[in-house]
């Protein structure tokens, strides 16, 4: 009994100390949030007067026009892939900061694209300080990985399905089918390969994925295709490792650990909390403030914010699913005196109109995720929902309900897009029913999608099991601009590339790449790496072909399902594509004349990375159905047949004298005794 009471007291003590801690924390953050909102409002009014007289009743949200351009332009488009709220530098930043947002883009096919981004910023230095032990919003497991393996930058993605560029346009964050991992290490790392090996094994545990299959046979060091996206101007690609596992299948078991990294994403058992709460009440201890309670509630009982929508039963009932984690260091302020770490978790999925079994072209949050939104994540400094309404400025294509008056504009992937914004931190967003179930109802299904300027496909040509040819087709759909692309091909060693047959042709003419980086493979050790810089002429198809021979593996090297075929990972095509905004400069009516003569710099071209489909190649496969019989039979045939045939061929035959008679033999014995030669 005494022991029981003792344990109760210790529970109480722990809980109380925790609540005090949290109160302190909340007090620290609330004013900032208030201030933040105020700034937003100011910015809005400022913008309102300056811009867009056409839609007067609509408010314009302040958008970032790349103030961190000095850094981000060097990085790449991922910085601009989603609009961000301005955080004025004069405001003292919280030590860590969490933002969440969901972008929904209705697609012309009637499908719908939903893209989640969760960003955690933390002003700490994993490298300098001895040990970072106190974690708040930043997941501890990843923090430890960063410090232990001296990671400068880490990008990991798990994707199921293939992004259909021709129907869906460009994704905000591209990723190849299967798993992709690329890591830049700090230059303090001495043995990069060993660290990489260890890191993949650790990540494999964290994400419940087969990343431990990454070894030297599928790891490459691209020389140009993958530059660091964060701070640091590193050019020594010996600190870079890149690997893909095209066969990796993504499922709930990968989603759960990914969700656990979110501050509002994990679900802890409720009973301990309710029990403790009950005790608190009974003992008459001074009640913690309501904010703390709500905080505890959200922390311990349920998910909150956008993470509520991440339910596997619906997410995996889609045509495309991709989840990713990007870690990099970014500037803390515009002077970039100190850096902070950014963790960006993204999740993209495309929901299919036909598969959902509905007759009308109509989508709602509930239909997509089987949940509605009721609140923002209490830990998030901003929590927003964006709907892409660029193709629907007057509401003639589809109808949004509830309607919002808040608008935002951003240049995404070279195209100026307009978004309706729902701010989840505002009570009014949820209306009287206290829940937001956004409804998109199509009115007409006309209108053509802008053809993507760059897309690519790849296939294996030929038949038979001896040789083949890999064809990579790259389409430049720009009517008058040519632009260079960087093609990265990593081919496993068991396809022996005949690199002398490499040919690049566009419009029937030979197209000489201006840069070729080729590392030949080494059997069972490392893959081929081919990187090329190719200029794509306007309005053309460029075809890269290379022949290969299929290797005959050793019989223990075949996987358990050899007849399924062997995967070759996607090619990666990275390019700066001339922007469509620049393309339409002449026809833009909304912009004043003085602003539209020279295309603006940040709009003139944009970074795109696209991935081709992976290939499934059949290698010559022995019949494994009865190995034992085959081995026995072969050995017997070889031993008996060959042995005796060899015997017959090499032996010389002589006719033996017939057996001498008994008398002759006796005579011979006598003769031998006499020393006379026998008869």
């Amino acid at each position, binding site marked *: 009994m005494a022991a029981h009471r003792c344990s109760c007291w210790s529970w109480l003590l722990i809980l109380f100390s925790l609540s005090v801690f949290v109160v302190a924390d909340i007090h620290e953050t609330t004013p900032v949030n208030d201030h933040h909102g105020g700034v937003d409002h100011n910015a809005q009014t400022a913008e309102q007067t300056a811009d867009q007289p056409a839609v007067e009743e609509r408010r314009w949200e302040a958008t970032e026009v790349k103030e961190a351009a000095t850094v981000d332009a060097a990085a790449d488009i991922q910085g601009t892939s989603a609009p961000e709220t301005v955080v004025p530098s004069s405001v003292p930043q919280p030590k860590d900061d969490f933002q969440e947002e969901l972008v929904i883009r209705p697609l012309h*096919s009637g499908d719908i694209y939903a893209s989640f981004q969760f960003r955690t910023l933390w002003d700490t230095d994993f490298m300098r300080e001895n040990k970072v032990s106190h974690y708040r919003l930043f997941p501890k497991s990843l923090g430890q990985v960063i410090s232990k393996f001296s990671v400068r930058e880490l990008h990991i993605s798990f994707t*199921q*399905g293939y992004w259909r560029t021709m*129907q869906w346009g460009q994704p905000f964050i591209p990723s190849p*089918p299967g798993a992709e991992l690329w890591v830049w290490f700090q230059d303090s790392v001495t043995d990069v390969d060993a660290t990489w090996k260890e890191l993949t094994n650790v990540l494999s545990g964290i994400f419940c994925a087969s990343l431990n299959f990454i070894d030297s046979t599928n790891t490459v060091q691209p020389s140009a295709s993958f530059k660091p996206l964060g701070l640091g101007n590193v050019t020594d690609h010996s600190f870079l490792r890149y690997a893909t596992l095209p066969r990796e299948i993504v499922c709930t078991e990968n989603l759960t650990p990914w969700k656990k990294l979110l501050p509002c994403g994990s679900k802890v058992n409720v009973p301990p909390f309710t029990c403790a709460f009950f005790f608190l009440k009974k003992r008459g201890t001074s009640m913690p403030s309501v904010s703390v309670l709500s905080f505890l509630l959200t922390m311990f009982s349920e998910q909150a914010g956008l993470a509520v929508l991440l339910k596997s039963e619906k997410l995996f009932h*889609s045509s495309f699913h991709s989840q990713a984690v990007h870690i990099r260091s970014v500037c803390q302020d515009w002077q970039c005196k100190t850096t902070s770490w950014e963790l960006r978790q993204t999740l993209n999925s495309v929901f299919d109109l036909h598969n959902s079994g509905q007759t009308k072209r109509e989508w709602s949050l509930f239909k997509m995720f089987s949940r509605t939104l009721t609140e923002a994540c209490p830990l998030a400094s901003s929590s927003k929902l964006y709907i892409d309404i660029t193709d629907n400025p007057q509401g003639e294509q589809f109808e949004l309900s509830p309607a919002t008056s808040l608008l935002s504009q951003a240049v995404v992937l070279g195209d100026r897009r307009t978004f309706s914004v729902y701010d989840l931190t505002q009570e009014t967003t949820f209306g009287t029913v206290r829940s937001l179930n956004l409804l998109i109802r199509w009115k007409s299904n006309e209108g053509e999608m802008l053809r993507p300027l760059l897309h690519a496909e790849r296939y294996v040509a030929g*038949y038979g099991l001896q040789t083949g040819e890999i064809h990579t087709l790259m389409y430049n759909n720009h009517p008058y601009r040519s632009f260079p692309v960087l093609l990265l091909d990593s081919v496993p060693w068991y396809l022996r590339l005949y690199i002398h047959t490499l040919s690049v042709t566009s419009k029937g003419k030979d197209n000489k790449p201006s840069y070729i980086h080729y590392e030949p493979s080494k059997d069972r050790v490392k893959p081929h790496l081919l990187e090329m810089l190719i200029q794509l002429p306007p309005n053309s198809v460029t075809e890269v072909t290379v022949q290969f021979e299929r290797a005959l593996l050793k019989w223990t090297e075949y996987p358990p399902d050899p007849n*399924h075929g062997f995967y070759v990972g996607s090619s990666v095509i990275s390019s700066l594509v001339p922007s469509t905004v620049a393309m339409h400069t002449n026809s833009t009516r909304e912009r004043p004349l003085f602003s539209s003569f020279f295309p603006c710099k940040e709009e003139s071209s944009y970074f795109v990375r696209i991935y081709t489909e992976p290939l499934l190649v*059949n290698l010559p496969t022995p019949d494994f159905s009865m190995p034992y019989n085959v081995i026995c039979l072969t050995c017997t045939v070889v031993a008996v047949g060959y042995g*005796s045939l060899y015997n017959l061929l090499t032996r010389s035959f002589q006719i033996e004298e017939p057996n001498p008679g008994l008398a002759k033999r006796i005579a011979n014995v006598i003769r031998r005794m006499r020393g006379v030669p026998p008869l």
Partner: protein
Amino acid sequence: MGLLSDPNRRRALISMLTRLNAPICVVCYFAGVAWFMGLAFEPFTLRTYMSENAMGSTMVEERFPAGERALATGREFAAHKKKVGGMPVDWLVKNMQDRGLEVFTQSFSRTLPFPDENKERYIVKGTNVYGILRAPRAPRTEALVLSAPCSPGDNNNQAVGLLLGLAQYFRNQIYWAKDIIFLVNEHDLIGMQAWLEGYHHTNTTGMSWSPLQGRGGSIQAALSLELSSDVITSLDLVLEGLNGQLPNLDLANLFYAFCQKIGVLCTIQGKLQRNDWDSVSGYNHAVQTMMLMVMKQASGRPWGDHGLFLRYHIEAATIKGVNSFRQYKTDATTIGRLLEGMYRKLNNLLERLHQSYFFYLMPSLSHFVSIGYYMPAFGLLAVILLLRALDLWVQLNTPPSTTQDGVADIDQQSSPGVLSVLTPLVISHLTGVALYALPIRFQETAVEHFPVSETEAVVLTAIAIYTAGLALPHNTHRLLSGEGTEQGWRVLKLVAVLYLAVLLGCTALINFSLGFILALTLVPLAAFVTPHVPKVLSAFILVILSPACTLLFSVFFFQELQDMPVSFQDGWLLYLSVISQGILDHSLYGSLVYPLIALLVYPCWLLFWNILFWK
């Protein structure tokens, strides 16, 4: 092997083999034929069983509801086809797009080497339309194909309708793990050839096609659908493909399993299965079914649109709806459910179909004869050639006259021997080359000089060269080497017999049926031909057993098997058209039977003709 290393025993064995050579050969021949005929006897065959685990135990439900609507679509298709006077490309594209597929077209054109009189076409231009159902979350690595030919006239409209109906139904399902390609091909096999070549970016036959825009990765299996009436009584499965290739037996098993499950009558070679295997008529029925398969396989031509897939290691079959006057009718919904079930099971495949047999014969849909069972029949025939060769070899080594003169004779003959063997070999092969190359080359000249059409010109030229070859080679070696000697023909026959053995052996490995039929006729003549047999009778037998006559008999036999006997006149016309089809198959699809016969089998037969007239 001790048997052979002991000279005494070796001598005894060899003398026994040479002494008893003729009886052993006769026994082997009849044993081979008997073995082959026994294959159709049910107790000697195996029941089919599903080897692929991924398709075996997993249950699927068939729920396809929209058969009537599919037929309505088919009628609409027929109306548009009539209006356009060919493939209604725009209508198809729009329809497939409405069903949520990614739609692409491919145009192709091909000029035939000479007009095809059976199908009345010479310059072929067409368009294939295909729509890809993208598997929800698969990265375009694997695909399945469902195709329906757009045939002229009123044929196959229902097949296209059902294809579109299935596309609509399949599109709404989430469970697809492989892309499904719905292909409507124009000009049946030519369109299919163009599509497959485009898909794999190869060009084996000199056809011109526009490159494909969309692909679905490596194709795992394909079914071709032929359906010409709203209700059918039975479904027929066609397996024989190009060059006698067959799809994996599991595909046939899958079809059979679903026919059983859904309750559709199914046939193979148009023959229903019978249960009375122990009666004579039941056995006859099984033999007929198997012989039909053997004849079709031996012809080396694709017997349905599926036949061309096999070259690319894609398991494929054609399903034909048959409407005869039986009571039991099946509607389109049921066929749709059958196909749905098959595709769902194929969708479950983890690996390509590889577990079951690739070499088999089917006396009925539920029984099969595997390669291990039918090869001995061929082996018994082939061993005759080896025995004859051994006999000849021994005769050559032990000359009948052991006198000093005889030995000197051999020494004399050994030097011209090479020439006397080489000359007929070269000449007969040149005749073969002429037979292969000239008919098409000289069709225009022939048309100018004789009142015949191009097709007739080609066929008649081929027959003329074939017959002219009979007069050529047996007279020529004398010009070079003077009088033929006793040893000379033996050496030539030894070479010819071994040549035939290798040739038939290789053919039988690739296409058992063709090898067996050729062995059936060529082996006896190879065994008995010498210059000393009665000339006229032997010449007659030789001509009767020559490849061309074998083909003629096969035509009549095939018609007989199909219960459609023809008169001699019709048979002859059919024979001519078969020859022209064979030549066309070679140039259009790369069938190897015509070059095999012209370049190898016919010259080999000429060598025996040569031996008969050895002077």
